[in-house]
């Protein structure tokens, strides 16, 4: 009747070690608390270049359950429609979340759009040059009935724009090892157009001009530090 006690004891010590390590290494400090924040509503200019906010276009609010999910993930949500002198419109949506850890991260927009009944096509990921920085972004065309909406978007985490799942995971781990939970922005521009190629070009020019017109520190957070 002898089951060795040595091995269970080693296993126990290993388990206690893992438990201790995971308590000590879990980040609790928010990166957002260590530096000044921005109020999106006042930091994003209502007019820049040829663009100004279209006062007659009020963005359609999301459905109630969408809204409750959004307010859990994002601390600030900015939705505006801009119009230029030619009467062309571009919709801008910027969200900010102070806690970009697993369950609270910004959502992939192709998932959000398809949840609202849009069909997603031509989804592609590509690096865009915005305000002199290389930003890993995504483009897609969302279609619902007669409505054809080319969309460009990207995410940031801490000081970097991150697109792939692995990128986000590694960036989060990098901050975790420094004991911090990163914050993040989602920048999305879209327009109604049946010519996606043209619309994407215009969205890029729009967002480039917009980024050039915001506070340099906020710009750095929007486009990442690769500039």
């Amino acid at each position: 009747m002898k089951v060795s006690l040595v091995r269970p004891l080693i296993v126990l010590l290993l388990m206690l070690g893992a438990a201790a390590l995971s308590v000590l290494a879990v980040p609790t400090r928010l990166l957002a608390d260590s530096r000044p924040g921005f109020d999106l509503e006042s930091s994003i200019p209502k007019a820049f270049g040829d663009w100004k906010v279209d006062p007659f276009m009020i963005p359609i609010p999301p459905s109630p359950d969408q809204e409750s999910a959004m307010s859990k993930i994002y601390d600030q949500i900015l939705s505006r429609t801009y119009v230029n002198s030619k009467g062309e419109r571009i919709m801008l949506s910027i969200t900010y979340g102070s806690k970009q850890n697993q369950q609270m991260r910004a959502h992939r927009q192709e998932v959000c759009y398809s949840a609202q009944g849009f069909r997603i096509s031509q989804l592609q990921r590509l690096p865009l040059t915005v305000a002199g920085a290389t930003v890993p972004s995504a483009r897609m065309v969302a279609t619902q009935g007669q409505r054809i909406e080319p969309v460009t978007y990207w995410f940031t985490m801490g000081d970097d724009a991150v697109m792939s799942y692995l990128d986000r995971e590694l960036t989060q781990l990098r901050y975790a090892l420094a004991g911090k939970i990163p914050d993040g922005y989602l920048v999305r521009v879209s327009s109604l157009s049946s010519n996606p190629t043209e619309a994407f070009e215009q969205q890029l020019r729009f967002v480039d001009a917009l980024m050039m017109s915001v506070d340099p520190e906020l710009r750095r957070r929007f486009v990442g530090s690769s500039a």
Partner: protein
Amino acid sequence: MNTMAGSGAVSPTRNLHSMLPLAMLAFGFSVMFGPVFYKLAQTVWNTDEQGHGPIILGVVVWLLWLRRDALHAAALAGQPAGISGWVVLLLGLLTYVVGRIQNIVTFEMGAAIPLLVGMLAVSFGWRVVRVAAFPIFFILFAVPLPGAVVDALTQPLKQAVSWAAEGILYAMGYPISRTGVILRVGQYQLLVADACAGLNSMFTLEALGLLYMNIVGHTSKLRNVLLAILIIPMSFFANIIRVMILVLVTYHFGDEAGQGVVHGAAGMVLFGVALLLMFIIDGILGFFFRNREGKTA
């Protein structure tokens, strides 16, 4: 070391000394997973979608308890594992630590599987792991699915369920139309929510099905695999019925009826229908397999 090798039979005398290693492992396990269970109870297990977690864990404990004599006998008869056991154990520890630091619940909870396998193998040997294999495997159903997987599966399921419910009700002559996952019937509009996609009821039913098979103990592997696969379309079908019930109740008795008690009751109907289907299909499968076995015998 090998004094007990001859008496692999069930020994009813489990004295304190033989329980000590088990108590040590149980203590370590609860220190690690207590906080995980607490967190899950506050978050994922508190939702409609994955609320079945604690029940699964209860079943795991019960299944292990049923095997207590066999486990004890295996522990006495077996040899502690070599390097392979340690590798599995370390894998479990690593998964756990990464999951905790990165706040990935799938890893935090999922780590329990390699960890249990590893610690049992290292302490008592692979024989014990083999006896405990099904209960440990069953923990899989208590592991929260990764968000990316849920998102990827939920959308098409929701679309398909909405599409099928619309098609059937339209054929029955109801004034119903659909945009994406929004159903309009009469003056009412229903949004097919994530929970209605049936992804989680699919997993719960799969878990129940496997449990049923394990308890019934069919000898034919093929029969078990077939039944396990057939549970997927069965739960999909049951889910269409649930959505149809909700649409019909809303149409005939109003919005409040559709959102109130009936909403919960429709979930029960879902499980009732799916379980009934499972028993029927298992019965049909049994008919075939008995015939085949009869011929070969």
